């Protein structure tokens, strides 16, 4: 028993212990440091899976697919905790948050990391569902942290839509179990991924079809796919910025991971409908909708929230197309989007603090007034818009070419959506970053390390991908079918 749990201690035990500890520590400086250290240990624990892969048990397992997610998750979690420390310091000084709020915030941050890690390494579809629910609830209370009118409305909306989504996902999960019942018999092993994927060919296809519809809608709500995306912009805009960063960079991925797992199940059953077209449809809808909505945004965090909808659409589309190349591109895009979008939110968090506003009209000429921050944002936005030589350009290029090869007609709406989004982002970037500086010129005590660290990785990935990484991703792409 000990041997089966021990390897997971770093990614599960540390966050839960840290959450309990942070709930008791009143001083925010100390708790911010503990938060960072806990995230660092979690990252080391996650990285250890790269070296030694623990054996699968009925509840937890590590395979080639979830290891990517868990490493990205732990890494962005760690850099966010570094950013969060400087962000929170400013919020305390400006009096927007009190010490007691911070205690709660840090405990919830670790609880959220626990939930996401558990969802990623769960070998049991029921356990994964519980973990996603836990991660959702912790983010809900953090979105409402400021207790302003807007924050409460955003949190309420997120809570209601998130709960409904998660309820539908549970029904889908039950249906998968019912489908597996005649083949695998009763009991815990029937809900294990490792068993389901082996025997899925003999499941009742009609039940699987129905289950997948519920799962796609349910977890799709958490991914932020149109038409069930309603919570996403509000939650991003009104919560503390570190939470916007982890929502976009991590939580959406966790939900996407769940969808991908079930997609693999569907692909293993010859009689079930192909999940691809459904995912392509929802992906394209999200991409197009997100791209057009970018034009009318006046709030800077809301702008990037819609950009997240757009990119989750692209990723879902890529996995929907399927095949080794598109899956590879989808995985790469997901990783790059996590890194870039969280970097952008790090910059935006500090910008909003300096200027005291999130309105795009009131932010101008950042590259002049705050060069480090301003140029960081410029690079981040250029990367997310898909300009070469950044990593996102490469993944988008791969997605477009693989679509061309598989289904040329689908490339038209895809490229159109990409271009529309590109135009909107450059338009907004122009006024935010250049021109006469507007608003407060207060010096910024930001920590630039997380921001530039992410951007450097995204740039490096665009120029050169190590062949080990390429082989690794190719192997996973084959696994995804």
């Amino acid at each position, binding site marked *: 028993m000990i041997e089966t749990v021990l390897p997971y201690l770093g990614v599960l035990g540390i966050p839960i212990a840290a959450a309990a500890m942070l709930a008791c520590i009143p001083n925010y400086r100390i708790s911010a440091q503990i938060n960072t250290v806990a995230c660092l240990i979690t990252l080391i624990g996650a990285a250890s899976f790269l070296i030694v892969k623990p054996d699968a048990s009925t509840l937890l397992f590590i395979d080639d697919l979830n290891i990517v997610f868990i490493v990205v998750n732990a890494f962005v979690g760690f850099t966010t905790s570094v950013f969060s420390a400087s962000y929170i310091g400013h919020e305390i000084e400006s009096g927007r948050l009190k010490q007691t709020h911070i205690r709660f915030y840090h405990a919830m941050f670790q609880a959220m990391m626990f939930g996401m890690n558990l969802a990623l390494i769960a070998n049991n579809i029921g356990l994964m569902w519980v973990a996603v629910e836990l991660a959702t609830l912790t983010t809900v209370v953090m979105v409402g942290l400021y207790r302003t009118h807007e924050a409460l409305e955003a949190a309420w909306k997120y809570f209601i839509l998130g709960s409904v989504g998660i309820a539908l996902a549970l029904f889908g999960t039950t249906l998968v179990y019912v489908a597996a019942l005649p083949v695998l018999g009763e009991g815990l092993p029937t809900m294990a991924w490792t068993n389901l994927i082996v025997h899925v060919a003999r499941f009742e296809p009609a039940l699987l079809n129905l289950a997948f519809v519920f799962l796609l809608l349910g977890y799709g709500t958490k991914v932020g796919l149109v038409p069930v995306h309603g919570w996403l912009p509000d939650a991003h805009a009104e919560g503390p910025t570190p939470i916007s960063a982890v929502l976009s960079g991590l939580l959406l991925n966790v939900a996407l991971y769940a969808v991908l797992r079930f997609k693999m199940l569907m692909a293993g059953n010859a009689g079930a409908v192909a999940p691809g077209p459904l995912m392509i449809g929802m992906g394209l809808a999200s991409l197009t909708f997100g791209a057009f909505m970018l034009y009318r945004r*006046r709030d800077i965090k809301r702008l990037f929230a819609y950009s997240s909808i757009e990119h989750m659409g692209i990723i879902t589309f890529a996995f929907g197309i399927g095949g080794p190349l598109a899956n590879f591109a989808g995985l790469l895009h997901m990783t790059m989007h996590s890194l870039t979008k969280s970097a952008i939110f790090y910059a935006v968090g500090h910008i909003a603090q300096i200027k005291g506003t999130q309105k795009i009209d009131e932010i101008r000429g950042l590259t002049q007034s705050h060069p480090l921050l301003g140029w960081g944002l410029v690079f981040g936005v250029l990367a997310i818009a898909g300009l070469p030589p950044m990593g996102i350009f490469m993944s988008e290029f791969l997605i477009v070419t693989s679509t061309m090869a598989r289904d040329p007609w689908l490339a038209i709406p895809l490229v159109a959506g990409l271009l529309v989004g590109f135009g909107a982002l450059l338009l907004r970037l122009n006024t935010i970053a250049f021109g006469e500086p507007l608003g407060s010129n207060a010096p910024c005590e930001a920590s630039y390390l997380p921001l530039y660290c992410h951007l450097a990785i995204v740039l490096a990935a665009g120029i050169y991908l190590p062949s080990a990484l390429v082989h690794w991703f190719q192997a996973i792409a084959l696994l995804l079918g």
Partner: protein
Amino acid sequence: METLTYDVAHLFAGGMVLVSFMLLYQDRMSALLNVFALHAAVLSLSVAWQAYVQDAPHLYVTASIALVLKAIVIPTALRRIVRRLDIHREVETAVGIGVTMLGGVGLVALSIVLMLKVTAGVDPLGRQDLAFALAVILLGLLMMVTRRNAVSQVVGFLSLENGLILAASGARGMPLVVEISIAFSVLIAFFVIGLFLFRIRERFDSVELTAMHTFRGDRS
């Protein structure tokens, strides 16, 4: 004996759908909460019957959680919230009750037709349960979208969760881990909801969701 177990299971699960309909046409808050308590009580009976039929003692735990928490504790707490916050005693609807009922009938027909079609291979007991559970879930969703008041939306959500537990208990031998955690999650969910209601009260002196919709973010 076989037909008796089948009929009783059918009775309870069908009863839940019926009570879901009753939730739809309540126009007073206190009555709504009473009917919700009834909903949870029927759920508890249904789960207990499944526990007996499947010879699965752990389901009794689920049944008693449903009875204690959902039929007694939560309605009492919600009643208190309604009284303390001085919420409108009437349930305010966004869509007329007649239209809602018609929609509900359509949803029930849909779920029965759909589930019976796809679950041909499942044993008949679980099959009925799944069909009724889907109906309860959809009716809960319908209630959430047609109510304006935060408390009645919460009741809609809780009735939806009841449907989920009905489905899970009908799935033969679904592991205990899941059921306990479902109940636990409901508890957390309720905790969060309670928190929200109080905070909303703190800020707006109202639990009317429409009062919150002044905010549209980008349009200012």
